[in-house]
């Protein structure tokens, strides 16, 4: 009964979404106050219905209702409760419902937190979001209904994909979707502004916190996925340029460009068209990502069952959503003014370079991702584009961006003096260069140009950020003591520098792990020792252990340094009852300065697991800095969102309305 109830809630949500969407948009255009007033309660009703449906599906998972096809395919009565709840998004249908849930909740949050928005603006934003929700609802109901019954039901479910039975992967999709879906808010704001023909500073200010929030979630989601791939797949890598990874990386790049260009639009009124186009692009790339993952046009490790009907629907949806907004953009864009002018060397020009570089980077990833498709479509054969292309292209594109990042905050709006910048930053440059040359030699005894470059950029960004921060503290200090002056800095300022330092930490991690990681693939009998990076790994043998829904062979590897036992590592080879493929659980000794990583291969003789094993050991210096840097970036974003000025503007809502245009 309960699954039918959920299905019914979804069916009911469909007309609600389309009615609220159309009435709100038409109402805003024709200035019908009553129609516009529907937007808020309508959005909340939609959120309620979708939440209800989601809870119904969760209930079916928790209660092991294997007469629901989706539950039977993705759960099992032996599955621990936490994974059953998370199993809701373990497959295509349920993850779409999660996506839907987040979309309506973002919309509901907009309806709560954007009280001072002028009624037509709010109606347009919510109306756009409702129409996007309508498209997704239609998609779910037509091609991917999670409530489809399996009659007669089966006694036992097929179990959740063992790869997904892991805390990292439980959180990865929700965070990623929060980011993807969050960009739909930026998109809705952009469409609303285009519809109204009002691309002004106020519009930019309203989109900023939402965009930054979405960006932060996306950052965390991608980082978590990368971390998961690192410890779960047992290959020891952290990024593979897989099409689906790229699909999440492209909106991130566009979103990063967007949060920077929004700043210019808000402060200086410039880049308006550009900003709107980026807002549309960030969401479009999210949709493109969905298409690439769900339609099966590209092969990837993220194997969702490919279904041509789904592919056709998403493509049609993408063409409609993106196509319409682009037509709107092309129609409106020529009439938008250009905003404040700026000099060749100014904060605007630097942010423009930031945008250009990030867009080029996005295009590079897009090209690499779609190239196999293009070649196949032209009947020129089959090929795949792998890390060599991306690494070769990406480093030279991103290096200038990272360099400019150090300078950017020092520049004034409109026009800056190059002389002054040189004066301020010359010692920082010298220090960064010195660190880049000396540090690798002193610590690792040897260096590569790419490692030097990475360390230089990381040190440069860090020193420049600290310098800028302390300068700011110094100039705003007044008569208060230093600590209060530090704490009094606005949150958005803290946020920017934390995020930039996060990039520095990330780059340092990438450079060091790329330059100095070591690995050994060895066969080991119990008692044997392998030495790597000054550590001894002593293989003690393998014992069978039992998990709730799997059996495993657990190895024991002692980690010694200087004749002292540091840790016992326990890598596993798991055999889930539901899957023929054994799963590798690597054991990792995580440390601030690097990881030591052990994963079990195969026993040399399958009949004698007590004998010799193929064992892979890695030393990964600073690898956790990669994810730590991402976390800092996201945390910086969060701080920026919490800044007082976004809350202040709510109080002084009346004198700062979106409807009144400042005269040119």
């Amino acid at each position, binding site marked *: 009964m309960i699954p039918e109830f959920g299905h019914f809630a979804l069916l009911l949500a469909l007309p609600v979404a389309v009615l609220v969407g159309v009435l709100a948009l038409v109402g805003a255009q024709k200035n019908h106050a009553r129609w516009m007033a529907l937007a808020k309660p309508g959005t909340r009703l939609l959120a309620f219905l979708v939440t209800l449906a989601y809870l119904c599906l969760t209930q079916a998972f928790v209660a092991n209702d294997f007469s629901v096809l989706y539950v039977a395919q993705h759960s099992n009565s032996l599955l621990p409760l936490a994974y059953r709840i998370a199993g809701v998004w373990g497959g295509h249908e349920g993850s779409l419902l999660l996506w839907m849930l987040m979309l309506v909740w973002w919309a509901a949050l907009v309806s709560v937190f954007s009280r001072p928005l002028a009624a037509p603006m709010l109606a347009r934003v919510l109306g756009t979001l409702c129409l996007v929700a309508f498209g997704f609802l239609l998609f779910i109901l037509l091609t991917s209904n999670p409530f489809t019954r399996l009659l007669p039901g089966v006694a036992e479910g097929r179990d959740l994909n063992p790869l997904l039975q892991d805390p990292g992967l439980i959180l990865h999709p929700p965070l990623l979707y929060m980011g993807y879906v969050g960009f739909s808010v930026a998109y809705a704001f952009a469409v609303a502004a285009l519809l109204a*023909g009002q691309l002004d500073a106020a519009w930019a200010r309203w989109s900023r916190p939402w965009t930054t929030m979405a960006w932060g979630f996306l950052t965390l989601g991608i980082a978590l996925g990368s971390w998961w791939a690192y410890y779960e797949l047992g290959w020891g890598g952290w990024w593979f340029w897989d099409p689906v990874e790229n699909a999440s990386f492209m909106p991130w790049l566009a979103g990063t460009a967007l949060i920077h260009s929004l700043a210019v639009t808000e402060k200086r009124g410039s880049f308006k068209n550009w900003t709107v186009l980026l807002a549309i692009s960030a969401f479009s790339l999210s949709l493109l990502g969905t298409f690439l993952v769900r339609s099966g046009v*590209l092969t990837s490790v993220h194997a969702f069952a490919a279904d041509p009907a789904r*592919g056709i629907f998403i493509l049609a949806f993408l*063409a409609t959503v993106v196509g319409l907004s682009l037509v709107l953009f092309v129609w409106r*864009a020529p009439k938008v003014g250009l905003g404040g002018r700026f000099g060749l060397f100014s904060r605007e020009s630097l942010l423009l370079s930031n945008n250009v570089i990030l867009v080029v980077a996005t295009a590079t990833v897009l090209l690499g991702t779609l190239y196999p*498709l293009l070649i*196949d479509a032209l009947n020129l054969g089959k090929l795949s584009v792998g890390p060599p292309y991306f690494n070769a292209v990406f480093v030279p594109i991103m290096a200038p961006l990272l360099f400019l990042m150090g300078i950017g905050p020092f520049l004034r709006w409109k026009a800056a003096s190059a002389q002054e910048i040189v004066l301020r930053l010359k010692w920082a440059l010298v220090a960064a260069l010195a660190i880049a040359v000396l540090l690798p030699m002193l610590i690792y005894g040897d260096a590569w140009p790419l490692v030097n470059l990475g360390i230089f950029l990381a040190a440069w960004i860090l020193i420049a950020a600290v310098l800028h921060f302390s300068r700011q503290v110094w100039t705003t200090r007044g008569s208060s003591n230093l600590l209060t002056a530090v704490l009094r800095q606005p949150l958005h300022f803290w946020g920017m520098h934390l995020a930039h330092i996060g990039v520095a930490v990330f780059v340092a991690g990438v450079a060091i792990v790329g330059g100095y990681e070591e690995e050994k693939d060895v066969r080991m009998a119990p008692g044997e020792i392998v030495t790597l990076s000054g550590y001894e790994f002593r293989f003690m043998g393998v014992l069978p252990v039992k998990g709730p829904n799997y059996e495993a062979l657990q190895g024991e590897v002692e980690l010694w340094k200087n004749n002292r036992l540091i840790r016992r590592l326990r890598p596993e080879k798991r055999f889930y009852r539901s899957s023929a493929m054994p799963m590798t659980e690597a054991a990792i000794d995580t440390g601030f300065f690097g990881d030591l990583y052990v994963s079990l291969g195969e026993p040399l003789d399958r009949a004698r697991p007590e004998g010799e094993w193929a064992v892979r050991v890695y030393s990964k210096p600073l690898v956790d800095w990669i994810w730590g840097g991402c976390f800092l970036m996201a945390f910086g974003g969060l701080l920026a969102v919490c800044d007082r000025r976004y809350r202040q503007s709510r109080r002084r809502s009346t004198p700062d309305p979106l409807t009144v*245009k400042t005269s040119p």
Partner: protein
Amino acid sequence: MKETLNDPVRPELVEGHSLQKQGQRLPQPERWGVVQSFLNNKYVWILVAFAALVALLAVGLTRDPREIPSPFIGKAAPEFRLARLEGAAGETFGPADMQGKVWLLNVWASWCVACRAEHPQLVALARQNLVPLIGLNYKEARGDGDLDISKMPLEEETALTRQRAAGWLTAHGNPYTLSVLDVDGRVGIDYGVYGVPETFVIDKAGIIRFKQIGPLTEEVLQEKILPLVNKLNELNAAP
């Protein structure tokens, strides 16, 4: 703060859209004006690029990225000589025996679940007597994860293979004209087998013309394999 500013460097902005001077509430342009303003619009390329992208994705939908062309197509079927499953001891078979005939080589094993899935197709095919179907029993014993053959001498493994393969065919029906035993999987390596079951179509001259990786479906059989067999049978029917 100045919100709008006409850029003097780009006069086309002003000329092409004189309407903008009438303020932000845009009056509806005439029907012809809409077309014209789109043609003059410097942003139109965005729409063109997007349309191209959608077209590419649409074409992409019709392709299957998992369909990998096999390097074996068009090459001579690797020669082998293996013991037969049935018949008297010492009887062997090799591709040379099929010279002048179009035939199918199907790689199977009793531990292979997908083979069981395709088996009814093979039995139905055999009943129609359209084309000789040779079975290559692949790593029957050593491919089975549940079986420990590490200490087993080869003769014993061969005997076990024979017993298991024959038992399986008795249980599920025998569609094969004859079967050969690839006990250690060497022939499988020569044929580039990486996913059992696999099926090869080999022509009269001993050239591999088609390769199916994974189970045969009714669709593949009817739309690809049988038409190909017919075509190959008609071709160079001479000598």
